[in-house]
């Protein structure tokens, strides 16, 4: 067994800021997940008419002026809200934090489509006269925009960038924070993922063309991972950013520690643009477990990526069956069944929604699972009602994306004096 890491190399979550379609902070979000409350609603998008979406309702003027909201992007506003909420939750005295030692690492599935669609629509109202194309388009669409807006809002002068990782991006943001803190590139990271995807018609239209856009007469029942009657993805917006610190720093200031990132992995299918591969997902989970020095039987809760697409759910179920075959007590759940697929925010939101399990001992369910697809058979699924677990020590979070990107993050409950 490897020697335990020194506290300066152990990385912990110390503050959480989030907005989800069913909650604008961790307590609200957790409450909704335990009570089975969906955030999916009817939604209108340009050209397509009525669709379904997970829509956030956070107050964007809580941390921004009207002018800043107008100047920036929705993804920027989501990120600014989450970053400020995380800092407030962290207990850090922000005025005393050296701003050049703060890094901002935000996972995104895509960025810029919203602004480009808006500008094309705008010039279409002027016979496609490009002279009315906004001078704001470039700063709004550069890929670092959401992270850059956070630095502008908070006066952060350390590094900032986004990590483009399709729907694995939320985990990728956390992983970047771990790596940068271990490298000494920053002393405090603000990391996670955001998505503004519901504000582009293109994502809905593309999923529809792909035969993967969910529909249901009751919006709250549209997102149905693992269910025989699932018919695709509900697109959602959202954001989830954490303050991430070295354990040594967190302990020195007496911070509340939500959990320690003890393992992670990212790998690639190298197989298909959209179809996932359970072989590489299996390898990714096993690599993360290995790096964490854990066995599958050490995991108490698995937060699945499943999006309610036909093949995606089957592949992930196959990977989970393989990795957790001898683990009947692990609780396997899914947050997309409540809020839809929050794209760049999904992995981060889904992990954070499970962290309270360390203290309340509950595993939230996967809802809308009325008729389990035999191809997704998993005996450990937490179906429709939360499960009382008792002690929860380890959570494994899957997050996968197009072009065959897989990511896994494992978080362990932090206990003073423990390793």
């Amino acid at each position, binding site marked *: 067994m490897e020697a335990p890491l020194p506290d300066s190399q152990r990385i912990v979550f110390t503050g959480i800021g989030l907005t989800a379609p069913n909650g604008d902070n961790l307590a609200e979000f957790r409450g909704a997940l335990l009570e089975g409350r969906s955030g999916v609603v009817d939604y209108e998008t340009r050209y397509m008419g009525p669709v379904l979406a997970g829509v956030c309702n956070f107050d964007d003027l809580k941390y921004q*002026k*009207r*002018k800043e909201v*107008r100047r920036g992007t929705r993804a920027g506003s989501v990120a600014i809200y989450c970053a400020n909420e995380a800092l407030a939750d962290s207990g850090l005295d922000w005025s005393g934090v050296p701003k050049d030692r703060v890094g901002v690492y935000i996972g995104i599935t895509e960025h810029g489509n919203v602004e480009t669609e808006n500008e094309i629509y705008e010039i279409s109202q*002027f016979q496609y006269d490009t*002279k*009315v194309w906004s*001078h*704001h388009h470039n*700063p709004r669409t550069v890929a670092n925009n959401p992270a850059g807006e956070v630095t502008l809002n908070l006066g952060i002068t350390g590094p900032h960038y986004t990590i483009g990782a399709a729907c694995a991006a939320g985990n990728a943001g956390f992983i970047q924070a771990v790596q940068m803190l271990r490298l000494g590139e920053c002393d405090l990271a603000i990391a996670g993922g955001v998505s503004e995807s519901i504000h582009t018609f293109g994502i809905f239209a593309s999923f529809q063309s792909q035969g993967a856009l969910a529909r249901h007469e009751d919006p709250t029942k549209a997102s149905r991972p693992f269910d025989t009657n699932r018919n695709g993805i509900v697109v959602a917006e959202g954001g989830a950013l954490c303050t991430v610190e070295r354990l040594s720093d967190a302990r020195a200031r007496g911070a509340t520690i939500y959990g320690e990132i003890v393992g992670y992995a990212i790998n690639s299918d190298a197989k298909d643009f959209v179809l996932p591969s359970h072989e590489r997902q299996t390898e990714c989970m096993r690599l993360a477990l290995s790096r964490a020095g854990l066995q599958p039987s050490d995991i108490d809760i698995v937060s699945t990526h499943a999006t309610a697409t036909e093949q995606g759910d089957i592949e992930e179920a196959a990977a989970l069956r393989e990795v957790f075959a001898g683990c009947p007590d692990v609780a396997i759940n899914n947050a997309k069944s409540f809020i839809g697929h929050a794209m760049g925010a999904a992995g981060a939101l889904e992990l954070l929604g499970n962290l309270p399990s360390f203290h309340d001992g509950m595993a939230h369910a996967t809802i809308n699972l009325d008729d389990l697809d035999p191809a997704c058979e998993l005996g450990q699924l937490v179906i429709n009602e939360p499960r009382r677990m008792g002690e929860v020590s380890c959570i494994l979070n899957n997050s996968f994306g197009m072009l065959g990107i897989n990511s896994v993050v494992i978080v362990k409950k932090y206990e003073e004096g423990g390793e």
Partner: protein
Amino acid sequence: MNPEQIRQVVLDILARIAPDEDISELQDEVPFRDQMELDSMDFLDIVMELRKQYRIQIPEEDYEHLTTMSSTVTYLTPHLKDVESQAV
């Protein structure tokens, strides 16, 4: 439009560009930037809004005329004298 109507057009544009500011006391002879938080991108918003609403193409060398409300109205008056006011 007459100068007073043009002044209102500019005032409406400024209100959209700087929604957090109270511009009811704006002084017409004092530069905008001395009374409001306006950067170069905001200034381009004024030019863009005039272009969109009234199809006025303001060349870059004329931007200096858009310094104060008074100079802006003076500059715009010949461009907008034959344009109907959109005010309701």
